């Protein structure tokens, strides 16, 4: 029905004619209402004609050839509240002088995300946070996720590691999806210039972003229906329309940086192996059978190809190595980055364009890797075709190439820390003379990481196209018809080539592989088509705005991968070179998603102070089970601008608001289907289908207030409570269920609440200097309130990383594992009656065999034998950040301090180093003899890699995340160069310069390499975040 109405409306509204008559001229000046200073380069527009101009150097303007009639005139200038007024244009000369008020708090800034149409911030009934180009440009991030870090309250951005070309993970407020991965993760819906993103954020540069708008939860994001429970981030890039009419703007920016590991790790510099004849004898060995190893570190068996070494009788790691290398320094190599950006923009009034190119090269900090490079071209065009008819096009193409480094167990990050300091990683292979001796350290199970990095090629190349075409037609002033088409296409090739002759270490021996070639490609094409009809009318003191929209979403995914093992010919990256009896395998996957959604929204604004907003949306999607194909969402919100009715001293503006809305999370593609695993053409039963599978449903209530006071402060705070039910989880089936192992069900609920606040202060603002400070704060609590499956552990997916426990009634983000007894009273009856002697040691642990070479901690055990306890919680007490910006006569100082207070990290990196006796804590040199511990004591804490509280660490940190010092040479300071240049700015920039933390790993900002990054605070041999210094020069023409 709605579709038919829309169609009729569209058809009817296109009927109409256009007439031209006598013309007049409009002229005048635009000035600052407070200071009466003239405003050069301000824009003035005749809205109905899409015709306009900008003021000259003296603030004057003239628009000619205006047909006689009544028009809406709009004047706007950056930092001032725009105004609109109605003017009667008569034949001949008409004068209109306009005064604009400075918009100190940005209250008149227009936001468009989640609302009916462009709405000033002061009239919003829910939170829409925004980040402007100014906030982003000082320290440009390589991608959008980084640009949000620390800049908006309630936004959690986790840069899990420093891998070049990897985007950070974003979570807005609390978690909405438990069991991250099966029902999706916490990632918000992201829209760039009207294109709903289906792929990574890493492809999208930040230097041409104009603004980022953030809707944090269902109370604001209902407009986006079943994809919006995690909130919505909408990004707009710069367009020529922002320039003064007739102006051309060219920006050339180059940045060169230097990156380094910010911190060394505390590794053992001593070992526990016998070095002397006395130590050998004490350990029951005959010294005659032993000799010193070539590095002069420990005694090894002589006359054997597999020489063993002997742990000292006391097991204490306090013997020197004969040779010392810093393996971290040898593997982590400082790197460089280059970032070039060129943009050309032009505004011709009825048409404008903006072109930009960016080139990014980040080498990263790992030896033998090239890192990441990306090129991006963007074109934004707007054209007024006829009166009331505008067309816009936005297109972005990027290509990137990444020299991939594997992470986690078995990766180079492992070997770099495991291999002992006496080993020369740079020695050549004795087998084939190639660089980096693969079995450099035969006593460690890891191969030389440098050999792996040098020998195996792993590359990921990606192409990405984002495009949007938008047509707007305004048949009459109060009606807007809009049609939009967008496409997001990603094509990626990943290749791993292990050459023939590749060596792997096996103790003192090496194995030679015949090599392999693996290549996988995928293409994802997502297309959206929308039609919207809007109606705006002001009836006396009531403004009514209505909008109805239809959105069709189509998404196609196809992947293909192939492997070949055992090359007959060396040096060739082709499957043709695989031996005839070598193994070749193929795999493919396709998925298609179709959704159609309709919504209607109404917004009422009475006397500019009572604001109400209603929304209803119906989503239909092929991802929903066939009996649940359509789902409804809605939103009701209201705001009251108190200060419009009451004058309160020193309060400029005070608004109260409340909003309640619902939104969804779609199931993953295969969830609803009955599936078989097919391998080699033979099917076996896998999952049982569920025609009743629904999207998860998030319901959010937000209350909040915005206060602007003392002419310079702006404060915003919100409290939101969110319930996300119908969680999409894989529910196991019994063995008797006909062979199907599981079925996706709507089987859980998570409740979260978030308190967030931000304070903006413009402390100084005059012609020469300005000082602004922004403080953000947020605190989130999350709990699983219902779970229809057995409690389970989850984690990033690497070995023994399922630390995070999910159970009904439990906080989401808790860690469970073994605990170590720290007080004799904690021993169970069985332990107390076991006859074993338990004592407290100097480190506060209850141990057996205190002071002996078998000293070992004791695992806590309950009377019923349970030994699994809650040991940590990733949820921080709160997050806060402070950004400060000071400008004085061209000098600029900017910094962003970001803090996470509380929230635990599971440090598996440390645990594994205990196994290898490589962690600094195992090193007993310099420890008082009475307090020395044998390495077995530390190995016991490793606990066969089972989780224990020993490795739960507080992840609190304060980070100096961004610093920029800059100086801008204005045109007049540039001398003769000023004839060509508009301005030049030089900056010195630092990223991650300083981190204050007690966390013992490389960086407290760490997460697992898979799954729900924002909840998996897990340190397991990933690429650490690093520090970057850079210098940039920006020229404007």
């Amino acid at each position: 029905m709605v579709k038919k109405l829309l169609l009729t409306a569209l058809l009817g509204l296109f009927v109409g004619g256009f007439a031209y008559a006598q013309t007049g001229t409009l002229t005048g000046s635009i000035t600052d209402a407070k200071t009466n200073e003239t405003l050069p380069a301000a824009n003035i527009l005749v809205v109905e004609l899409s015709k306009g101009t900008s003021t000259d150097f003296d603030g004057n303007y003239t628009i000619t050839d205006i047909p006689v009639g009544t028009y809406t005139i709009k004047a706007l200038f950056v930092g001032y509240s725009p105004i609109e007024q109605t003017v009667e244009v008569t034949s001949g000369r008409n004068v209109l002088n306009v005064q604009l008020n400075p918009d100190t708090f940005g209250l008149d800034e227009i936001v468009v995300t989640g609302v009916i149409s462009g709405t000033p911030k002061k009239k919003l009934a829910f939170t829409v946070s925004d980040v402007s180009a100014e906030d982003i440009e000082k320290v440009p991030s390589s991608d959008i996720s980084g640009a949000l870090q620390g800049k908006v309250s309630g936004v959690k951005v986790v840069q899990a590691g420093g891998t070049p070309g990897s985007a950070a993970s974003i979570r807005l407020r609390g978690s909405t999806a438990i069991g991250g991965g099966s029902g999706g993760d916490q990632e918000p819906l992201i829209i760039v210039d009207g294109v709903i993103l289906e792929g990574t954020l890493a492809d999208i540069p930040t230097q041409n972003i104009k603004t980022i708008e953030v809707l944090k939860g269902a109370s604001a994001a209902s407009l986006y229906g079943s994809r919006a429970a995690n909130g919505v981030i909408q990004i707009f890039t710069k367009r020529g329309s922002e320039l003064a009419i007739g102006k051309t703007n060219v920006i050339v920016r180059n940045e060169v940086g230097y990156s380094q590991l910010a911190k060394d790790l505390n590794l053992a510099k001593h070992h526990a192996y016998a070095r002397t004849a006395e130590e050998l004898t004490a350990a029951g060995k005959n010294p005659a059978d032993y000799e010193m190893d070539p590095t002069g570190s420990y005694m090894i068996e002589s006359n054997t190809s597999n020489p063993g070494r002997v742990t000292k009788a006391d097991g204490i790691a306090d013997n020197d190595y004969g040779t010392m290398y810093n393996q971290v320094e040898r593997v982590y190599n400082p790197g460089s980055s280059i970032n070039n950006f060129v943009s050309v923009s032009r505004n011709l009034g009825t048409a404008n364009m903006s072109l930009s190119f960016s080139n990014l090269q980040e080498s990263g900090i790992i030896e033998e890797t090239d890192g990441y490079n990306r090129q991006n071209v963007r074109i934004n065009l707007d054209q007024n075709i006829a009166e009331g008819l505008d067309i816009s096009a936005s297109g972005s193409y990027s290509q990137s190439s990444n020299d991939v480094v594997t992470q986690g167990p078995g990766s180079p990050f492992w070997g770099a820390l495991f291999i002992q300091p006496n080993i020369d990683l740079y020695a050549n292979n004795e087998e084939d003379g190639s660089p980096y001796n693969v079995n450099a350290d035969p006593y460690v199970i890891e191969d030389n990481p440098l050999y792996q990095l040098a020998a195996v090629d792993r590359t990921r190349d990606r192409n990405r196209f984002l495009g949007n075409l938008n047509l707007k037609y305004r048949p009459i002033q109060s009606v807007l018809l809009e049609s939009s088409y967008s496409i997001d296409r990603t094509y990626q090739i990943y290749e791993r080539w292990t050459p023939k002759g590749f060596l792997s270490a096996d103790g003192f021996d090496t194995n030679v592989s015949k090599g392999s070639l693996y290549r996988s490609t995928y293409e994802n094409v997502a297309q959206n088509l929308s039609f919207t009809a809007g109606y705006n009318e002001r009836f006396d003191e009531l403004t009514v705005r209505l909008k109805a929209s239809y959105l069709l979403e189509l998404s196609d995914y196809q992947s293909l991968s192939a492997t070949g093992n055992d090359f007959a010919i060396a040096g060739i990256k082709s499957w043709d070179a695989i031996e005839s009896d070598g193994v070749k395998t193929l795999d493919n996957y396709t998925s298609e998603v179709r959704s159609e959604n309709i919504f209607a929204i109404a917004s009422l604004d009475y006397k500019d102070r009572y604001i109400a907003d209603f929304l209803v949306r119906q989503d239909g999607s092929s991802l929903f089970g066939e009996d649940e194909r359509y789902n409804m969402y809605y939103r009701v919100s209201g705001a009251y601008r108190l200060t419009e009715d009451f004058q309160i001293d020193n309060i400029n503006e005070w608004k109260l608001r409340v909003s309640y809305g619902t939104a969804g999370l779609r199931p993953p593609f295969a969830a609803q289907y009955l599936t078989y695993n097919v391998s080699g053409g033979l099917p076996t039963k896998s999952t049982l289908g569920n025609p009743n599978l629904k999207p998860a449903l998030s319901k959010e209530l937000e209350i909040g207030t915005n206060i602007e006071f003392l002419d310079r402060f702006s404060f915003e705070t919100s409290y939101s409570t969110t319930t996300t039910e119908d969680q999409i989880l894989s529910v196991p089936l019994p063995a008797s269920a006909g062979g199907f192992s599981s079925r996706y069900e709507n089987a859980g609920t998570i409740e979260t609440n978030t308190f967030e606040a931000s304070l903006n202060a413009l402390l100084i603002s005059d012609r020469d200097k300005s000082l602004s400070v922004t403080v953000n704060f947020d605190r989130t609590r999350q709990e699983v309130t219902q779970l229809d499956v057995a409690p389970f552990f989850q984690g990033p997916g690497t070995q023994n990383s399922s630390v995070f426990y999910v159970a009904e009634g439990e906080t989401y983000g808790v860690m469970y594992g073994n605990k170590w007894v720290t007080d004799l009273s904690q021993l169970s009856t069985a332990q107390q009656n076991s006859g074993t002697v338990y004592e407290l040691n100097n480190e506060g642990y209850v141990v057996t065999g205190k002071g002996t070479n078998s000293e070992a901690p004791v695992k806590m055990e309950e009377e019923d034998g349970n030994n699994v306890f809650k040991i940590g919680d990733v949820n921080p007490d709160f997050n806060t950040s402070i950004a400060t910006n000071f400008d004085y006569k061209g000098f600029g100082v900017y910094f962003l301090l970001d803090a996470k207070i509380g929230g635990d990290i599971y440090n598996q990196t440390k645990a594994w180093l205990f196994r290898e006796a490589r962690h600094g804590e195992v090193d007993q040199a310099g420890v008082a003899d009475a307090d020395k511990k044998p390495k077995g004591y530390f190995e016991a804490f490793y606990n066969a890699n089972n989780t224990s509280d020993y490795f739960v660490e507080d992840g609190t940190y304060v980070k100096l995340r961004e610093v920029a010092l800059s100086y801008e040479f204005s045109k007049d300071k540039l001398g003769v160069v000023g004839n060509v240049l508009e301005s030049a700015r030089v900056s010195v920039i630092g990223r991650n310069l300083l981190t204050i933390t007690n966390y013992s790993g490389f960086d407290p900002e760490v997460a697992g390499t898979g799954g729900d990054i924002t909840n998996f605070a897990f340190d397991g041999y990933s690429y650490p975040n690093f520090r970057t210094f850079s210098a940039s020069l920006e020229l404007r023409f």
Partner: protein
Amino acid sequence: MRNLKLIHTMKYIIVGSLLFSFACADLAVENENSPTTDQVLSSPEDIESLVQTSFIQWWQTETALYMNGVRVGQDIYTSSWGNFDMRNRGEEPRIAYNNSPTADGGAKSLAEDPWYGFYGALVQANDFLKQLNERSLVLPSQEANVSDEDYTKMVEAAAYLMQGLTIGNLGLYFDQALIFDEETPDEELASLEFIPYADVLDIADAKLQKASDLAATLSGVTLGDNYISGFDDMTMDEEFVELINTLRARFMVLGARSSTENDAVDWGTVKTLTEDGISYDFSPMGDDQFWYNYTLLYANLTNWLRVDQRVINLMDPSQPSRYPTDGSNPGEATSDDARLESDFIYYGNEPFQSARGQYYQSQYGSGRYDEHLFAYAGGPMAHTLKAENDLMFAEAVARTNDTGNYTEAANRINETRVDRGSLTPITSADFATSAALDAILYEREIELFHSGFMQDMGDQRRLGKQQPGSMIHYPVPAKELLILQKEIYTFGGTSNAKMKGDNPFNTIKSLDKLREEVKF
């Protein structure tokens, strides 16, 4: 005027694309990655493939990595790595098996992998037999000179074999199981009760007999292609029947949980069956696609698994039977048995962290099936060796004092004892003393080392050789107990205090709702 024309064009574009979009908004999308049930069962060949997949699933379940943990727990191999629960299983004194939904994946795999794996294979065989009965199918023969009717019977016999093997394996591995077949009505599946292992093994035996009876009628018919790798030409009325005889004997012998139960085994029947048992090694061939053996691969890697010192002591009694815990190295063993050299490798080093327990150490690895490693999962993979059949026969002769067969039994023992081990031959006179039985059990340890599913654990428990607190069988996985809302339990451990009593995971109220919704 130009503008007007443009407007009209735009109008058509907008309206046209609007109509287009409505026309294509069909929200039913197929999952092209997976066939539907109708597609899976669309042709007789597809239905036949249910049995072929059943064989693959059975094989992959028998040889999956969890078996490393099981073997370490029986002092066959040793390893202190935490993977596959090896460290926990090998710990001394023995600790309970952690049967919990929150155990780590390695520990869980010891109960879940065989449970869901064998049931997966069983369901495939059941589904085939159901289709066969419901549709009165006659499969098109894929073999020259075999009628469609005989071919169908061959597949049917293979399906019964799979029922017997999977149910039998559940009976060997678990203390109890849920048993259903093609004749169990769907509505009864949700209310099945567990039955004890002895009954489970009886049902397996009945299925195997059914397979054997049917196969015996199939003269001139061989097992089809793509059933058992390397056994495409197995004659149904001879080799297939022989295999089933051996397997039936095997389940009878290995099913015993204690020496008392071992004494109670019907050794007379074992003897009868093994008299007509296999005369060939039942060792499927690795094809690196479906037929591979991960436990062999790991067992042959230098530092993953070592042969337990207990086994070395059997061949060289001068060696300790438990690795010394005083830091000393027992050094290289010497033995009259040539297989110490041919089947085992002396590494001369200790691969594991001594702090985890010296008793995990070993200087020896296994090497008999090395070719499986080096050919990357190629070559024959010992399942039921002819020697196993011979040794069961000899043991039955010894235990039933069947004097008439002493010479035959001695010959069968000597086939490996002398031919491969170069040890002194056993004579019929040795049956008068314990010497013959000792030699049989020794052969079972050394000659059958790393062959067949549960051969090693089965012997350890029925002969009472286990360390106190070792697993005699595994519990039904906690995951399954939770779904069925049964109390979680476990075995093992010298005190076996763990996991007893109230289990907090038994209180998930909403599971009732799920059970109601998901009809199984």
